[in-house]
């Protein structure tokens, strides 16, 4: 590969290197030799740890945190390996590797999570060094996808492509990935630590539900800076992230995070696992005291070594490939004609496409939520075909969303119809992004060792009940989120309708909340009544939808109607009959 020309914005079409492979244009950070050496050394290190464990030199108690640092959990049926997809972006080479690992070491499928990661459910401990070695071949790893460290940084899935973007968050997410990887001071924090970053007008990264949520923005002088929220989180005690600082200049980006982490590492609770997240520290200290501690620590940090000089940022930015977009007319006659001729394609276009910043392109969301299907699951065969499609239509790049769907971020409008037909052929053309069938569900009791109840069967029953795409579209934006226990991996607290699986004397029951919101207007849902059976939960959702449809005014979303008429009518209709 030749040297990449310097470019101010990798998303903007311009002269650059055009590689021979389609995925040379995928919007990820290109590893250099040091990155590769680091990952290779870590694989080697973990292989030795596995050997020491199998030889009895490490106890399970000592080995567990080491395997967790490498993304390896023990679940109900086997080990589960969680592979990091930094900021959710993959090349097709990486995607094919994941498909291959699924086939070779697992049972031919994988599961995308709400943290933009991929999980394999049937992994053997003795195979993991080999798997990690194969991942390293394509510049991937499973580091810090578990354990009490800074986890994989997530961002908006349309980053670098969407029309409403102000700052490309990938560059900063990558800086954070590097900054926090094997951080000597912050690898044994009181608890896990999740960061999300966004850089556009609409929050697609749910930043105020994270330990740290960052909004990248620009000031009047055109400089980049960041707003920091801290102490958001779901789980047992949900909190909405609080503002710590409105403007942190780019050069202090890492330093400010360092200060937050140091305050947390020293003062976060370690006596009670349920009170160990930073949200509890912020809550107990109060945001003002917490802020004062952070500011003090921040002021003291020795410069310049914590300073992010512009050449560092530019250096990292330059390692992001350009999609090499063409200059196209804004409208495509071909696209318009296909929509007019094919109702299903027209519906899919309305529901699954988002505006791209470049004329003539669209962002395609690929739903992993077929009616009656398992949310987030994909087979190796589907992955292979999707990789081919991404090579052909989207510069060899595939993205993962926190809603457990995939994205082809740069598709020419002229190509949309062809792409849709081929997606349809492999069952990936479900037109339900953001609709009632696009259910987020954690693995629940079918796989997860911590679960109280199953999540997937309920998601399947709901999406089957609302299978009719026309009805889904008529209902409009409505997000259902399901978790199988209070850990809230399914983000149920912030679902427009949230469902939490509980165990009532050995029976699975489901507690329903309404009014949650994961965007910047973050709200925690309100519990509407006692937990019900799976069947009753599906009926209850049907009832709530009917009430909404009967009450909504022109253009009003489910969430808006709830906010206007209150939760009362919904509660009453469901529990009145009892």
């Amino acid at each position, binding site marked *: *590969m030749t*040297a*990449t020309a310097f470019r101010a914005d990798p998303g903007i079409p311009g002269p650059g290197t055009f590689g021979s492979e389609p995925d040379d244009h995928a919007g990820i950070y290109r590893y*250099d*030799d*040091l*990155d590769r*050496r*680091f990952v290779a*050394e*870590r694989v*080697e*290190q973990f292989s*030795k*740890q596995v050997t*020491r464990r199998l030889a009895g*030199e490490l106890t399970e108690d*000592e080995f567990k*945190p*080491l395997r967790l640092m490498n993304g390896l959990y023990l679940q109900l049926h086997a080990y589960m390996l969680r592979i990091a997809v930094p900021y959710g972006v993959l090349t097709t080479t990486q995607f094919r590797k994941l498909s291959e690992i699924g086939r070779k070491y697992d049972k031919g499928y994988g599961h995308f999570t709400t943290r933009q990661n991929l999980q394999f459910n049937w992994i053997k401990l003795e195979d993991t060094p080999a798997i990690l070695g194969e991942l390293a071949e394509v510049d991937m790893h499973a580091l810090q996808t578990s354990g*009490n460290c800074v986890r994989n940084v997530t961002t908006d899935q349309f980053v670098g492509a969407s029309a409403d973007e102000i700052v490309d968050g990938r560059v900063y997410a990558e*800086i954070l990935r*590097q*900054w926090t*990887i*094997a*951080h*000597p*001071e*912050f*690898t*044994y*924090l009181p608890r896990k630590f999740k960061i999300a970053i966004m850089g556009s007008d609409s929050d697609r990264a749910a930043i105020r539900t994270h330990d740290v949520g960052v909004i990248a923005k620009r000031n009047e002088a055109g400089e980049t800076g960041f707003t920091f929220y801290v102490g958001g989180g779901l789980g047992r005690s949900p909190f909405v992230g609080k503002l710590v600082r409105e403007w942190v200049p780019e050069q202090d980006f890492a330093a400010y995070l360092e200060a937050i982490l*140091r305050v947390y*590492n*020293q003062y976060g609770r*370690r006596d009670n696992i349920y009170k160990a997240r930073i949200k509890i520290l912020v809550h107990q200290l109060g945001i003002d005291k917490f802020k004062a501690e952070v500011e003090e620590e921040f002021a*003291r*940090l*020795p410069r*310049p*070594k*914590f*300073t*992010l*000089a512009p*050449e*560092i940022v530019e*250096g*990292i930015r330059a*390692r992001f490939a350009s999609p090499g977009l063409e200059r196209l007319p804004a409208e495509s006659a071909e696209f318009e004609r296909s929509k007019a001729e094919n109702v299903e394609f027209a519906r899919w276009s309305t529901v699954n496409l988002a505006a791209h910043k470049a004329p003539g392109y669209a962002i395609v969301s690929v739903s992993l939520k077929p009616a009656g299907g398992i949310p987030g699951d994909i087979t190796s065969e589907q992955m292979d075909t999707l990789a081919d499609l991404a090579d052909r239509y989207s510069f060899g790049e595939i993205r993962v969303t926190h809603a457990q769907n995939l994205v082809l971020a740069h598709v020419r409008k002229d190509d949309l119809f062809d792409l849709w037909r081929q997606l349809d052929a492999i069952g990936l053309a479900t037109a339900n992004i953001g609709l009632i069938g696009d259910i987020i569900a954690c693995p629940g009791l079918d796989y997860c060792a911590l679960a109280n109840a199953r999540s997937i069967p309920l998601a399947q029953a709901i999406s089957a009940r609302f299978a009719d795409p026309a009805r889904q579209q008529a209902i409009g934006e409505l997000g259902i989120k399901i978790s199988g226990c209070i850990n809230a991996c399914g983000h149920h607290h912030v679902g427009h309708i949230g469902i939490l699986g509980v165990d009532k004397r050995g029976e699975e029951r489901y507690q329903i909340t309404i009014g949650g919101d994961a965007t910047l207007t973050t709200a925690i849902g309100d519990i509407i009544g006692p937990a019900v059976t799976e069947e009753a939960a599906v009926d209850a959702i049907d009832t709530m939808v009917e009430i909404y449809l009967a009450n909504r005014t022109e253009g009003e979303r489910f969430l808006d109607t709830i906010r206007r008429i209150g939760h009362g009518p919904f509660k009453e209709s469901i529990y009145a009959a009892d």
Partner: protein
Amino acid sequence: MPLIEDGRPAEDSWTSVPDGEPVPGDIPAIISFERWQAERDSFAGRNTKLGVRLKGGTLAPAIAEDLDRFALVAVEFPKFRDGRGFSTARELRERYGYEGEIRAVGHVLPDQYLFLKRTGFTSVEAPEGTNLESWVNALSEVSVVYQPGLGKDDPNPLINRWLKSEAVQG
């Protein structure tokens, strides 16, 4: 208990003195922070080196004022999962400019050795029954770092790697 220094087993010239027992005046001795607080005046005329041992919950600011009295600060890890000690060492170095020995004691694993070293520890009292070979290997297992180290004006390693990576790429 085996002492590790610079990636090698080493002789321990220090003696840990349990609370209540007399502190020998002629050899380097480590006392608890609690004892120091209670009996500090009794060490006023001491000519031999003194060290202090901080429990997991005792953070750097607690000892900051008295650092010039100690040639060694031992930072205890109650459980290897309790990572406060990493911040304690770093604060001792970076915030308070402490230049004496910082020793990790308690439950630490060889797999943490590199992190200990990078946050400012000079020595480790490894738990009894530890595999010394694992400690010796631990420092060389991973050679790439992404964060700044403890040297006073170490450049940010992200700069280094970018400069290097440019060369590699060209």
